[in-house]
């Protein structure tokens, strides 16, 4: 199946913020499927920007960021307080079809991280 839209909420968490998947708890992955759209709803007073990371949550350098095509890894522009993200992120799995996990951190707060699981 495919074609759903998911909203991850950025919520206050102590002195920082956390990524809360739709109908889930902060720290859990956002489960999606191929060709779903994901956005982030910033419900904090600070700017955040989901940024692709390695599996141990190290942000990828700018030269490893791809934009504008299906399968790219750019997730969102900076998200202003109390706004949602753009562009909406299009989840895709590789042509080989296996389930993919996308790791990300906040570019401005690298200790804030989350995952998106894209099921084939």
């Amino acid at each position: 199946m495919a074609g759903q839209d998911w909203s991850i909420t950025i919520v206050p968490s102590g002195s920082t913020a956390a990524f809360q998947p739709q109908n889930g708890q902060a720290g859990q992955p956002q489960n999606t499927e191929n060709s779903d759209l994901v956005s982030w709803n910033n419900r904090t007073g600070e700017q955040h920007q989901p940024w692709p990371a390695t599996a141990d949550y190290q942000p990828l350098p700018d030269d490893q960021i791809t934009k504008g095509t299906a399968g790219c890894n750019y997730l969102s522009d900076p998200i202003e307080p109390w706004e949602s993200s753009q562009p909406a992120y299009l989840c895709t799995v590789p042509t080989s079809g296996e389930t993919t996990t996308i790791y990300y951190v906040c570019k401005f707060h690298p200790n804030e991280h989350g995952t998106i699981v894209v099921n084939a």
Partner: protein
Amino acid sequence: MRKLFFVLLLALPLAAQQPCPTGQPLPKVPEIAAQNGFLRGTITVASAQVMIPFRVPTTAPTAASTYNCYPQWVRILRGSTTPAYPATTGNNIGTAMPGPTLRARVGDLVQLTLLNQIDPNVFPYSIDQGEKSFGCDQTTVYPANAGDQFPNCFHGSSTVNIHFHGSHTNPNATGDNVFLELRPSPRTQDQANAPVVNGETFKSAFDDFFKQCESMLKPADPLIEWPTKWSDLPAAYTQKQEELLKAYDASGKYQKKLWPVDARQIAQGAWAQYYIGAYPYCWRIPQYTQTVWPPVQPPVSESAAANMTKVQPRHAHGPDPANTEGAGTAEMPGKEPTRLLQMGQSPGTHWYHAHKHGSTAINVSNGMTGAFIMEGQYDDDLNAFYGANWTRTQPLMVINQLGVAPNLERGGGGTTGPGGTGQPLGQDKGPGFAVNGQMQPVVSMQPGEVQMWRIVNTSSRAGAYLSLPTGFQWRQLSQDGVQFNNANYTNPIFQNQPLLLMPGNRADMLVMAPSRTGSTPLLVQNVVDPTNDLPTAAQVTMLTIKVAGTAKPMQFIPQAPQFPPFLADIKANEVTGSKVIRFSTSKGSTGASDHFIDNKQFSGEVGQVVLLNTVEEWKVVNETYGPPIAHPFHIHINPFQVVEVFDPNETIPDPNNPGKTLPMYVTTGTSTVAGQCAIDLTDSTTWKPCGKQSADNAIWWDVFAIPSGKQFKDTSGNVIASVPGYFKMRSRFVDYAGYYVLHCHILAHEDRGMMTIVEVAPLRSPYSHH
């Protein structure tokens, strides 16, 4: 350890999807019903999570298709209804349901408050991005993959208005005005996240406004238009709107400002376009009270004559020039009528939906649609035969292809799968049809019972082709909210036939159950181009009819309800003007389809001008050749009669090969069989239907699918001629001047530019030779 954690993550439920329930009783949609001549209530647009069905697999539907329901944030319509809707706010996940059914009677005054409490942040950045200069919604691939440019792109889906589809009324101000844009209320910036504008904010101001509106819009003269200017709205409302709009502009987030637009329009005497949080609708459903058509001017008393506003006589020839003296000015409150209502509102099954350009497809797919039942003599006659209040107890079926963001925003669209994978979908005509928000619900009948089904196809994309359920009989009572006359109702060619409802179409059907008990599916095929799609579209179950209990033998009403005189056939000698309107689809530079009317996309400029109270015949042409799309033509305010249809792709049964078909139209010089016609590819005057089509008893519509074109090719595959499909319609452009729209009712096409403005203009001659 890390590996174990990963396994645990994958073991979590996949976003709580579940098989969609089927076999549930057809839900009754809560209603806002008129009382004592007033349709009063509040319609709230909100964001909520509801279970939305998605087909498994995503490819074209088959009998084996199933549906999984996912909790999805959508924009919903709810209202001050009885009974109340189940709560679906916050993280309480509700079931899908159309907006409240509106039920009123012709002649009633509509007084509805529209509240916009959408939280735009639960969607991808969806507040109208026109103010951020780049305009369109943005996803990883959209709009670059489509080449769309503002305003003809998906955008601004948290901004709404309401189109009262099928209404014959004032298209301006607080009437059926689709140009206004109501933005969502600001919200508190705390974890309560509550809308600042709520039902109480303007209650007092709107109460005053509705009271004044009632005093202005007297039932005796439904041509009166009020309000007409900004100062007619309560000061408490306009001042707060100015404050809200200026605060929006001052937020620093937007390059384009809203209040200056309103201020300019107000200064020009036009109706302001932008509002925030709440908007009042007030308009009268016009009742035609005369027993003849054309209407006859009643004797006027001397005192009344002294009060009449004498205006320039009109020079065009309308339905009856003697009766339309003074046409061209809206009737003013407090004055005796100077012209007569030419068309009343047809009592029947109409509907309403969000109609903000750029977001109609998303909003309607989300479920922002509802039925609007306008009662009248039609209901009285049915109830006189079947019993008191019978029509109010009968099933209403609001069908919709529920969904979220369009495929094009995911890199798909047309016949290509989403995700940029290029996965062919085959005959993808959108999601399956939900009925009152449910997949495959059950309608209960007793053996022999006759029910009246009001069916509304509110889908944004596909037509629903319904086959007569086995063992049942049905008769069509009306099309698009306009009742059949007795000749059509009793004509066998309209009885027990399949029913095609393109997006926006409605039909009232009298359905008779068989004498036996048991369950029978109502099968549907979803089609975008009926002629080309039907041979291969799978039949799937839309609902199940369960016949059980004691026998309840009933009859079809022998005669159609009394036919209103204003629905008399439009004769050829009434027609005073003609036009040709061309719809077309072609591939753009990115490979995505672009959609045009008269080779233009929507620009906010007037595309067609018609004089008020004139009658025109339009040839509506479809120059789309592939993939075939029968664009559903829709025009607001006035219904039309279809008097000629030419479908170059039409087929006939092959007399020599049972089960096979032959093209109805072949080229000159080709041998033909009975039923085939030859057209000369070098002579476009021969591109017309086989035989003569009668315009007598023509059915009234407000959405009609334009047959797609056909390209004839030589043996090498080279195109010799492109023959467009078309239909001809006649319409009376009467009673209400102003601006409204015509468009394709495949709403993604409309959002992406297949719409134009119609100006119905009063004739104000600067010269008189009398």
